[in-house]
């Protein structure tokens, strides 16, 4: 549970000698997709107050590919929930495409998630007993898109992740990698400003992980989509352009990736398996 992780934060932050956080100067520029201003998040667990975020300020521009890293309890999950509009800051402001979402109500947040955020989760989170195509259609249904247009766009998104031949399959008839790609198609289908992935490769083996990262990189390059992934695997973070390290509810480090890995090249070097899902 989030609260459990966050308790450590309070205890640890007292003693650990914080290395001077390397933070970029934040500018609320026009191009910023994400802009956080002194964001705090406090959870109440009975009488205990848990300070999960302690004044985070950061900006992420259009077309960036950011990996958020940090030990468990560092506040990265809370950060992710706030960026994804699943939660609101206790204090401070969060601007998504210039709109302050700190004070939006539940329905409003749902609409913002629907229009501007595409989620990819560690455990895929596809609706069970519902075909791949229908899973991808889901955000469009809530966006009020007509049936015909919905079908066209869902098919297109599935084709983008290379699953045109799996439209009618149920999630339990798909491999982990395929399920994650369906989830990716679902995240893409409403053309969001931001794709937010929480440990997207956590449940996948090396090869399928690389395949998924390849899709992320391709979307980032070809469509200059803004991508934020939360991961604890340094390997995976190396596919991003920028890494933000969290520690004790604060940004500990924010650096550009030097030796950025190219997923498609890595894939070529990987030994070819017999039952290859990716053609």
């Amino acid at each position, binding site marked *: *549970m*989030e609260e459990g992780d966050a308790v450590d934060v309070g205890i640890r932050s007292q003693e650990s000698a914080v290395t001077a956080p390397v933070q970029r100067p934040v500018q609320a520029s026009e191009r910023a997709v994400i802009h956080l201003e002194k964001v705090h998040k406090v959870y109440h667990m009975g009488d205990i107050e848990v300070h999960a975020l302690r004044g985070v300020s950061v900006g992420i521009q259009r077309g960036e590919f950011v990996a958020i890293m940090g030990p468990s309890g560092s506040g990265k999950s809370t950060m992710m*929930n706030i960026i*994804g509009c*699943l*939660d609101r800051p206790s204090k401070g402001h969060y601007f998504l495409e210039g709109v302050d979402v700190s004070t939006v109500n*539940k*329905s409003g947040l*749902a*609409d913002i*998630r*629907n*229009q501007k955020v595409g*989620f990819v*989760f560690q455990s895929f*989170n*596809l*609706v*069970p*007993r*519902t075909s791949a195509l229908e899973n991808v259609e*889901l*955000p469009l*249904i*809530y*966006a*009020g898109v007509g*049936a015909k247009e919905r079908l066209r766009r869902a098919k297109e998104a599935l084709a983008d992740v290379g699953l045109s031949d799996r439209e009618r399959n149920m999630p339990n008839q798909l491999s982990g990698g395929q399920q994650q790609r369906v989830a990716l198609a*679902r995240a893409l289908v*409403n053309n969001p400003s931001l794709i937010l992935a929480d440990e997207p490769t956590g449940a996948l083996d090396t090869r399928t992980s690389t395949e998924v990262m390849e899709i992320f990189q391709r979307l980032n390059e070809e469509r200059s989509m803004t991508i934020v992934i939360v991961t604890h695997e340094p390997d995976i973070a190396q596919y991003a352009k920028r890494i933000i390290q969290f520690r004790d509810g604060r940004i500990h480090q924010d650096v550009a990736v030097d030796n950025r890995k190219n997923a498609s090249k890595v894939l070529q070097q990987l030994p070819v398996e017999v039952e290859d899902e990716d053609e």
Partner: protein
Amino acid sequence: MNFIAILKVAGRALGRNKLRTALTMLGITIGVGAVIVLVSIGQGAQAMVLDQISSMGSNMMYVMPGNLNFGGAALGAGAANSLTDEDVAAMEREIGTIRAASPVVNASGQLVFGNQNWFVRMQGTNQRFPEIRSWRVEQGDFFTDSDVRSAARVIVLGKSVAEKLFPGVDPIGETIRVRNLPFRVVGVLSAKGQSMVGQDQDDTAVIPYTTAQRKLLGQQIPSINQAMVSSISQEATGVTQRQITELLRQRHKIGPGESDDFMVRNMTDAAATFTQLTTIMTLLLGSIAAISLVVGGIGIMNIMLVSVTERTREIGIRMAVGARPNYVRLQFLTESIVLSLMGGVIGILIGGAIAALVSNRLGWPTLVSGLSVLVSFAFATVIGIFFGYYPAHKAAALDPIEALRYE
């Protein structure tokens, strides 16, 4: 929002666990079925009573001579000879809301034909009898105006009497003896069956009232037992009753403050009482059945709560990709309504079948009315909304972060 999409998801959710869905529906099916069966029995009884009442005559009233005080002793209703055939003629002539009126003179006696005989309570009336009692002549004709004026010895037999006296013989034109006087049979009335109190209404015969007065009873001063009056409509019976009272008080020279020497009995009042009685019965039966409907609704609520818990993660996913809380609420509400409506439709079908079976096998009259179907349908919907609301609200109030983590 897309209602087809909502229905599709609802259908899939209900189809996932068919046994559970069927059992939950069964609760509503039994409730609605019971409402349909019991209300149809109640309404059947009501229809039968109304039928009986209308068989007494159309918008009928009886006017009876009143009480006679004889040396301080009240001799009771009908004792006075205060009502005459002129009174009846005046009523018909002067009161616009009267369609037809006839004096009634009661006579009884042994009817004999060949070696058959039968004791009959006869009614002496004028030629308007079939119209007033809405009683068709099945064979032959009713006697005429001139028969009444000439006090002709003609008789119209009730169905039962005709069957007793003329087994296998056509009675029309035959002569029978009534108290040893020859009467010509001119007609036979259609069968009317039992009255509400179980009397055979067809065990009767009708003769001109003049004949009864002069030939059978040999009255020196002709008198009548009562008058029967048919009003032009049911609504007009009240007015007719008041006008009769007014007219008769005037004709009998009754001053203000003095009591009437006659009584008007409005059969519509009796009808209203009986209708009220059967309505109460129907409501009582219906509400007993409605209790089982409520129990069925609780079953729906129970299952919907289970469903919300089971699908917590799915709810979280839907919320994450942009389902508003209201949409989630509507989704679950739709599921409970679909559940109760399907149960309701099956209940209506089964209830209708059982009602048909009851009237077939037990001979009870039943009536499955459009209204009772509509009401059960509406009831099932309301149950679905009422008992589905809390689970749906619970689903809508879920926090997407918590819901996504739910295992």
